[in-house]
């Protein structure tokens, strides 16, 4: 951002006129690969500053809260605030909805279409487990019954499916 601009009023006016475009610029920036790493780096720094990590009751909520705050504040660019995070009481899955994606500069529709294609490449059991969990919303116990495996195996299939998708998407992106 042109912070050193000698005419702040001009910048202010420009910002007011192009607010939407600028915001989408930031969003896109955060979606790009380098900024995903930057974001992770920043979250990491914040996590390290928490003295008693064991005290974190819900690390996932904490992680999503910090990441979302950083995105909201564009704090990927402004690293001054690095402590004092109150864990958002919103359920983790709601917080997740606002997180940026981590697979390059794609819009949501492209990303989802690509993911659909990646999903088809999964091994049958992983694919079925992943679909049952995320598109059908079945519990792991129910997935186990559907696939005729143990609940532990059902979890393993979903975990593998997820990491597989992640890797394929990263390679494509």
């Amino acid at each position, binding site marked *: 951002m042109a912070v050193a601009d000698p005419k702040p009023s001009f910048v202010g006016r420009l910002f007011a006129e192009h607010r939407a475009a600028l915001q989408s610029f930031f969003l896109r920036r955060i979606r790009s690969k380098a900024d995903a790493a930057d974001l992770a780096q920043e979250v990491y720094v914040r996590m390290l500053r928490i003295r008693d990590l064991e005290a974190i009751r819900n690390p996932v909520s904490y992680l999503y809260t910090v990441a979302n705050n950083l995105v909201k504040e564009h704090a990927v660019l402004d690293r001054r605030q690095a402590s004092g995070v109150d864990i958002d009481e919103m359920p983790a899955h709601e917080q997740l909805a606002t997180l940026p994606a981590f697979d390059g500069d794609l819009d949501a529709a492209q990303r*989802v279409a690509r993911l659909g294609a990646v999903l088809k490449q999964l091994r049958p059991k992983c694919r*079925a487990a992943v679909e049952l969990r995320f598109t059908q919303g079945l519990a792991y116990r129910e997935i186990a019954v559907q696939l005729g495996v143990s609940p532990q195996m059902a979890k*393993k299939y979903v975990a593998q499916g997820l990491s597989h998708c992640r890797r394929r998407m990263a390679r494509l992106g």
Partner: protein
Amino acid sequence: MNSNEDGIRAAIAEQAGEWFVANDAGPLDAQDSAALAAWLKTSPVHIEEFLAVSTIARDLKEARTDPEYSLEAILARARAAEDTSVKSLWSRVIDTVWVRPPRRWFPIAATTAGFAVLIGVLLTWNVSRIQHPTAPERIAELHLATRHGEQLTQRLADNSVLHLNTDSAVSIRYSKSERLVMLMSGEADFEVAHEAHRAFRVQTVSAEVIDLGTKFDVRLEQGTTVITVVEGRVAVGPPKLSQNHSAQLINLNADQQIRVAEGQWPAAPVAVDAGRTTAWLHQQIAFDNEPLERVAAEYNRYISTPIEIVTPALRNLRISGVFATEDPEAFIAFLRSLKGVRVAVTATRIRVSGE
């Protein structure tokens, strides 16, 4: 990104997937939360992968596979598929990266960074041509193995179900004429789909079991084979039955057990509670008035930090109860509740001593 870095990334993505699922399956307990926090704190890459896996899970809710591909079709394919999915993921990283599973067998390990439990199932699938003396036949061979603390359930090609306990290895060979399972180490439980024209046989170094349509457990312990029948009936004989036609076979019925040491045939069956022998199928171990020494040895099959009995007099302390193999902490609490028993937990040992 070089291939090594790629491999490490892949391994971290896999751990991230496991952690995501562990959290997704229900709220993590305090121990697991701490372990996850520690895992995230390890490196920004861990955080990046966890966030990335999280967003994939979110996007999957919107991802639609082909509309012409119904869920039923996907399920049918999944049920029919050979269970080789574990292979590609683990085999690539297993030699280079220590993987910490989300579900911890032993919570103390959670706080010790370098003390990761390696879980992993190595599955290799070989299809080899073996020359049969009479007619060449295509024989599929499947190797399954579990590591310390790992269990595996596998549906076989004939719909029989194999449960593999901790530290176990089997080799499965199906041909037109027979279904042969070789138990190389550890313990396996079989629910056999009956086939009139194709026997199901289990071989170990010290015994051979011929299934007669049933559910049974075979455990190999320092050369001694322990066979327990849960349902139905099996015939037990010495090894290499096919070359030893005069060998005496012993029928074993439900709730009967036989112990066969190497070269010690025949052996006598005894009555047991088969439910207790196969408690491991439900991640439990059960003891009925058994010495602490034996109980500790059983528990040590599942946990990463072994129990050590420091005071010799305690070895014969009688223990009864059912314990979860996944919850050694509860077992430690139980030991601590016993009169005159002290338990000290260190990074490498659970030391049980007298007061």
